[in-house]
């Protein structure tokens, strides 16, 4: 059986890729995709820990399902916002979107 650390390494790598994407990409859709990757890295961690540490509880799986749900909602809302921004500003470049500047 594959040891737990492998999963964790994969999840960490995935998280870093996602983080990089979220921080460095200029396209708003890509940023959302990075966030999605980070969330899924977390899911991976949750499921792995459930399987290796507490297989008799359902907590890990339930958590993962919740995260997936929330991620779906987040993606929907994020894409809707991006769509709305695109309609009004003709761009999805996050560098240019600074309406909230103080």
């Amino acid at each position: 059986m594959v040891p737990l650390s492998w999963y964790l390494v994969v999840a960490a790598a995935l998280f870093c890729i996602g983080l990089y994407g979220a921080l460095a990409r200029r396209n708003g859709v890509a940023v959302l995709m990075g966030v999605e990757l980070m969330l899924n890295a977390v899911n991976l961690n949750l499921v792995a820990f459930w399987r290796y540490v507490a297989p008799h509880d359902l907590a890990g799986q339930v958590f993962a399902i919740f995260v997936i749900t929330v991620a779906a909602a987040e993606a929907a809302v994020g894409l809707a916002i991006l769509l709305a921004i695109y309609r009004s500003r003709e761009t999805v470049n996050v560098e240019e979107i600074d309406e909230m500047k103080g």
Partner: protein
Amino acid sequence: MLQLTWLIPFIPLAAFAVIVLWAYPRRQLSSSIAIGAIALSWVLSWGVVAQAIAQRLGMGERAFHLLADWVPTGDMWFRMGVQVDPLTAVMLFMVPFVCLMIFIYSVGYMEKDPRYSRFFAYISLFACGMLGLVVADNLFMLLVFWEIMGLCSYLLIGFWFEKPSAMKAGLKAFLTTRVGDVIMLSGLLLLYVQTGTLTFADLFAPETLHRLAETTVPGLGLPWATLIAMLIFGGAVGKSAQFPLHVWLPDAMEGPTPVSALIHAATMVSAGVYLVARTFPLFAAVEHGPQLGLVAFIGAFTALFASTIAIAQDDIKRVLAYSTISQLGYMIAALGIGAYVAAVFHLITHAFFKALLFLGSGSVIHGMEHGHHEAAHYGHGKHHEEAKPFDPNDMMGMGGLKAKMPTTFWTFLVGTLALAGVVPFAGFWSKDEILAHAYEAFLHEGVVSWPFFVWLLLTLAAFLTAFYMGRQVFLTFLGEPRTEAARHAHESPRSMTGPLVVLAFFAAFLGFAGTPWANAFHHLLAEGYEVWVPEVLHATPFNLSVAALSTAMALGGLFMGWWVYGRRPLQAGEVDPATRLGALYTLLRNKYYVDEFYRATVIRFVLWCSETFFGFDDKWVVDPIVDAVGAFGRWLSDALRRFVDTPVVDGAVNGVARAMDFCGRGLRLTQTGRVQNYLLVVLVTVLLLMGLYLYW
């Protein structure tokens, strides 16, 4: 019955309250309430008197007492109490009855007055005051009722306050009696300090009196009893209008005549005499002290002084006012020589015949006013009346009223004979008792003594009394009418003549209560009194020479009155034959210029004081101080504003705002509005926290 004594002053008080609060728009009802109340009091009073006599109540320990706690003063209580002893009983015999007569009389006299209800309210309150004073068992209550009467006197003298003279007379009465009241109050305070009680029964206990007589006032060398008695006498001088505080009483005649009769002749002015009689043990505590000499001197001097003034007055009521002062002087003088019983006896008889005379004069004035209206109405006689404004009180404008007002005349004559002291009318017996006492005392003590002084002055005053009363009767009732008003005068209504007849009956026959042979009055009053003052209360034996002399004086005075005014009646427009006395007449007519003297001295001094204090207050001291305080306050606030408020407080407020602004500007830079920047901050923060967590 005795248990109900407290109701006697209370009923008129209730009547006063009911009239003032509820009944005043209904005139008939108001007077009925007042008369009903005083009648009830009268019935109760005579019941109490009868029982007091039947039970042989004595003074001091043997008096009837009823007590209730009243005013707490520290750990003491002033007790509200009524007391019935012989002195109270004789006053209760006189006061409510005379009040009742005068109330009834007022119904007729005040008939046309717009303030009819108010008049009855006031006299009810007055009756409460007098009755309360009489039944009070301590000096504190006595003082309270005394002041109530002072107030009523003021209100009733100024009853016709549209007249400036009436208003001023009310003020004068109030202020003049106030001088006496203040002296009396200081006496009461000293008494309370010395004895710790104001109740008569405790005050006049032999040991208390003894202590007061033995201890002397530091610095004065007088016994306390002497000093306190003299101060209390000050109150009596004010209230009973004795020299030198007599000036208010003649002016008090500005009030309605029933008031003059009730307050300023029969009852209230005798309150002063009553006070001295009531506190007599205190006066007698020190034998041959100056206090009794002072009382005798003031009384006798006033008796003669006022009677000389009375012979030169033209106002029918003023003559009677001075006569009242003079008769009160008799009573005071009698007390001063220790003729206690005679003084109280004279007080009672005088109340009856002086009320009678005043009501008679009121009836005359009433008739004259009606006559004046009638004469004016029918239009005759205007031509010889225009010279002088009409004055219904002026005796010079009367004459011949005997035929017009027979009832008034005959009753007035009875009063005159009683006042002059003609046998067997009431005044003779009481006056004779005083004179006999004085005579006997001076035989005892020699010519250089108070009794001789008193006897001499009072005998002379008796002559003058008879003279001015003769003058009054001849000028008013006999001869020919001297004005149209007198020609058209007619008899007063029955509500007025009725009381006259009743009072005349008493004025004629009351004296028989105290004849030297069967002196029921003396027995009543002196019995039990020897507890306090044994030596002064032996009955005065009848002295034929004194009686003969005083009768001769009375008849001589009346004869002289006839000689001057009756032998050849005054004609209209003629001047008073007494003007032939020249400067003396002017002096008497102007009342020895006492008023003018007071105006030039006391009143000027008081006004000067007021002005000085006004200057002190307004110009030199108090106002400048106040102004300076104000200026200092302004200066201080200005300085505070400049050196504290602006730099410190405002600076703090503005500084806080500026700091906020600066911080805000700084923090604003972090708000780039770019999501990725925020995210980066989150990442860095998480990493930092994680690092902290792992490596701390």
